[in-house]
């Protein structure tokens, strides 16, 4: 790929950042060229992000319907899984999974809630609720 052929499609999710690509210059040597993104990359990345966002939205509805606890939603929104959350919060996987049940989550001790809030970088109030409407597309934090 020549320097001039490096895609510069200015795709939105780079948010103005640039990524390094290697390309051949006029002398036939490889140099680093900052790229503002490739539109195909945006499409493929969009597929994956949409899938995650749809999953998160489904979880949010389940929480509102009382099938899962808000903890599960916040874990997913932080792109964690029960294993990572358990290690981060210092609570065993078995207990973390148990706390995904809304009834049990509602009765948790403040100390446990505090360690979850710390692990997920949220306040305790945020941890107890889920956002009223769905988060924006691809906006995962």
């Amino acid at each position, binding site marked *: 790929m020549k320097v001039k052929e490096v895609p510069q499609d200015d795709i939105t*999710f*780079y*948010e103005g*950042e*640039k*990524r*390094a*690509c*290697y390309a051949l210059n006029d002398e036939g040597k*490889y140099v*680093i060229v*900052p790229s503002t993104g490739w539109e195909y*990359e*945006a499409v*493929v*990345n969009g*597929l*994956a*992000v949409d*899938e*995650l966002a749809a999953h998160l939205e489904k979880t949010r509805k389940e929480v509102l319907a009382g099938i899962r606890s808000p903890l599960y939603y916040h874990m997913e929104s*932080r*792109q*964690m899984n029960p*294993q*990572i959350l358990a*290690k*981060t919060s210092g609570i065993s996987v078995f207990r973390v999974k148990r706390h995904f049940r809304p009834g049990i989550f509602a009765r948790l001790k403040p100390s446990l809630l505090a360690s979850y809030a710390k692990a997920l*970088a949220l306040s305790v109030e945020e941890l107890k609720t889920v956002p009223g409407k769905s988060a924006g597309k*691809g*906006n*995962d*934090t």
Partner: protein
Amino acid sequence: MNAEITTSGRLFIHQHAAHCESGVTSALFRDQGVEVSEAMVFGIGSGIFFGHFPFIKWVGMPITTFRSRPRTLFPKVAKRLGGEFFTKEYRNTQKGMAALRKALSDDHIVGLTTNIYWLSYFPNRFRFQFNGHNIIVLREIENGFRISDPILDHPVDCSTEDLERARFARGPLEPKGFMYWAETVVENPDFRRACLEGIKESCYMMLRVPFPFVGIKGNEISGEKHYQKSGQAWFSGSLPASGQCGADAGRGRHGRRGI
């Protein structure tokens, strides 16, 4: 344009790189006066690799990687080019951060292994739970640190809280506050020998490892066999995963998520 100064006012030129670990390693060498490009470091450290692991799932999709495992490149380059390096892991967050501050005040530029999700200076879609991103800390600033991240084309600021979370994140391949810097390096390293060693190991990894899923065997599995078995499912299943590998962090980070 991208000139930065370290704690004692030494000049540091930030260079954009395609991969974080090779970018950091080459920056450490350049800071010690050995001019070595990122691409050279990548080759010497046998950075290239291919692996497709249909049985390891990340958000429900199989993992494809085209870079060697994080935290293998730096030790290999250090060994092959020669020099003395300080490397240490910390279990305790306070001790880890104190050691970082001390190293900075001793006028080192410090390489750190971090979790990319908690580094909030990245665009949202670059961020995911991956514990193998490498950055260089240049100096301490008010409420944070000045950071040279080879993935971005300019140095950035990072808050202390973010950096603490990122360094001591838990999960697969925990960074454990891993910290490294160059004490001394060999001034005129034998590049020829180092390159040969790197090439030999890369060839072995790509061609002859007696294990499926890696190297050319992984190539076969990810392409043809997968396709034959599930028809169009290859596109709906594994493309977004490898796509996000490639796209999100791709040449940069994501690719070497996985084993």
